[in-house]
């Protein structure tokens, strides 16, 4: 399987006066072409910052401090701004959590969705209109003609998110980045939007990076999952491995804290404490202060990168191999 996006040793720093704090700490991962990759973690774990810095969309004072991001073999971080612009508009698209803040309230939907075509192509108005209507129908909007002539405030949350998806898809991108796109939606609408994202992925072969704090949503949608904690990757692997046989205590804690039927009447197990702020990350293993199986070595050595028996399952933890058989020669010092 070839990788459409490769992230190598990416670090992101946030500048506060003269000091720089590391928000994301030299992470490596790759996106296979045609897959849906989930990134999961609590708020403040660096999920959004990671993808935004890949796209160069971070705000003032937040900058990549090291590493490379290869998109089809070319380093996005080393690229000139004009070159990058081309890739970003055309090959990589993004949709956000709150669709209303990404839509211009003063312009009709049809105008906004068709804008890239009006700027980048020489198509006539009729051709653009036809293409936009087709796109709106593609995202399962019931009445494309009516939506075309509506303003954003006239649509419901689910419809707005569909419009965002249509906007993101107008250039047929190779990667679609979704930053918590369903968090603000109702469960029934959420199910429909997830179905739509999956349909796009299957139909057009678009790779999807899907950020969410909800493991259940990730489980429903994604092929592979990266679990992030405090700016580092805690664990990554196939979805069924991560959900079924998690190796990192953080992932285990996340899964256990979701209420399911069986636990009715019993207290939920939960992870004590909270994600340390960027100014307060001292332990080599950032999860050590909240971890139930933390030992002395967790406070002194950076957790090793351990390859688990299952394919593609990697865990960054001293105690990952508890209960599992290590792969001969699979353990690598980090």
């Amino acid at each position, binding site marked *: 399987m070839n990788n459409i996006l490769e992230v190598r040793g990416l670090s992101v720093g946030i500048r506060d006066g003269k000091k720089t704090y590391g928000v994301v700490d030299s992470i490596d991962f790759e996106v296979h072409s045609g897959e849906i990759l989930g990134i999961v973690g609590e708020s403040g774990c660096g999920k959004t910052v990671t993808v935004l810095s890949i796209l160069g969309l971070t705000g003032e004072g937040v900058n990549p401090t090291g590493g490379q991001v290869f998109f089809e073999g070319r380093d996005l971080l080393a690229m000139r701004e004009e070159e990058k612009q081309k890739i970003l508009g055309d090959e990589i698209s993004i949709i956000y959590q709150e669709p209303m803040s990404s839509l211009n309230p003063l312009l009709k939907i049809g105008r906004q969705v068709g804008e890239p075509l009006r700027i980048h192509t020489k198509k006539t108005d009729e051709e653009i209109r036809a293409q936009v209507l087709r796109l709106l129908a593609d995202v399962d909007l019931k009445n494309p003609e009516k939506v075309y002539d509506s303003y954003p405030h006239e649509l419901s*949350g689910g419809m707005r998110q569909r419009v965002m998806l249509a906007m993101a898809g107008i250039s047929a991108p190779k990667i679609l980045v979704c930053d918590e796109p369903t968090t603000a939606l109702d469960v*029934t609408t959420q*199910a429909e939007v997830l179905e739509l994202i999956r349909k796009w992925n299957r139909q057009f072969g678009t790779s999807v990076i899907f950020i969410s704090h909800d493991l259940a949503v990730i489980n429903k949608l994604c092929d592979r999952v990266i679990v992030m904690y405090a700016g580092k990757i805690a664990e990554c692997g196939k979805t069924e491995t991560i959900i079924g046989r998690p190796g990192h205590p953080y992932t285990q*804690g996340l899964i256990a804290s979701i209420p*399911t039927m069986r*636990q009715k009447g019993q207290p939920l197990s*939960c992870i004590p404490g*909270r994600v340390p702020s960027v100014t307060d990350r001292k332990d080599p293993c950032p999860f050590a202060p909240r971890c139930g199986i933390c030992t002395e070595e967790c406070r002194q050595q950076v957790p090793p990168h351990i390859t688990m028996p299952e394919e593609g399952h990697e865990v960054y933890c001293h105690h990952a191999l508890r209960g599992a058989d290590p792969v001969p020669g699979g353990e690598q010092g980090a």
Partner: protein
Amino acid sequence: MEQNLKKSDEILTVEHVSNHYYENQLGIFSKRKKVQVLDDVSLSVRRDEFFGLVGESGSGKSTLANCVLNLIPFDGTIRVNGRTAKERDRKTFTGDVHAVFQDPLSALNPRKTIGFTLMQPLRAHREAMSAAHREAVRADQGTGTEKEMYEMAVRMLETVGLDGSYMTRYPHELSGGQRQRVCIGAALMIEPTLIIADEAISALDVSVGSQILNLFQEIHREKDFAMLFISHNLNVVYYLCDRIAVLYRGNIVEIGDAEDIYHRPAHPYTRLLLSAIPDFAQEGYAAHTDYTGEGVQREDVPGACCFYHRCPHATDVCLHKPQLRPAATPGAKENGHLSRCILNMT
């Protein structure tokens, strides 16, 4: 098991409550459009019970909460401890009902310390308490002097899993979970008989949310209060609550024991909700059904069943609004499992 309940066992009774507002249309001479938010809602919460209220956004969950808190006008009767808000003065009424809202930062005064916020209900209710109650509380905990109030607030902070050092801190210094703990503490200060939790854990991370859920259960073991727990998350509501009501466009479409609602849902809307929940354990109703209510879209007909426009099973009989009646599940009548569906499917 709860057959011999007396009326007095009901902490909260909501009877035929309706609420509407008028939406202004464009143009000066056009008629204002009436929007029905709550349509003849009746339910009751028993002593010591956790009652869950589920629905999508816009279904009227929070409006009902605001009606119970007497914050907005409504038609119908709402009794707390057997009396309506009109029959008693505002202070004694608010002493019985307290609320925890979704966003703790907007619920706390940013310019007052946590200690001040926690002691505020005590100050406000010191005079309002009935003499007998005041004596009882004084003998029990002592709420008379400023010092006694301070000690009570510290004790409350410990109850909700914080400590006395938080007394002098300000809301912005706390994390979301800690702020929500303070809000719960403030709601419990004067020992209300009913707590309304309106999406109280929706804005929190899963791990922090589960801490708060545990806290609710821990406190419930020690203190005697009922809770109206409002959420859009059926999993959480099932986990926490004894009984559940499902609200859709201002109508209760199904009401019953949590087990019945979750495992033997009777109304098509409840089934749709349950099948839409992403759940990696795939348990309960969603596990053994391929029910998908997607793709149905009809014109809305006035006077029809509230779910008519989305219901996959709707026929012409659904054009008349159905009543709540016992569902077609075994023992529905005895358990009070009611569904507002004329087809009454099994």
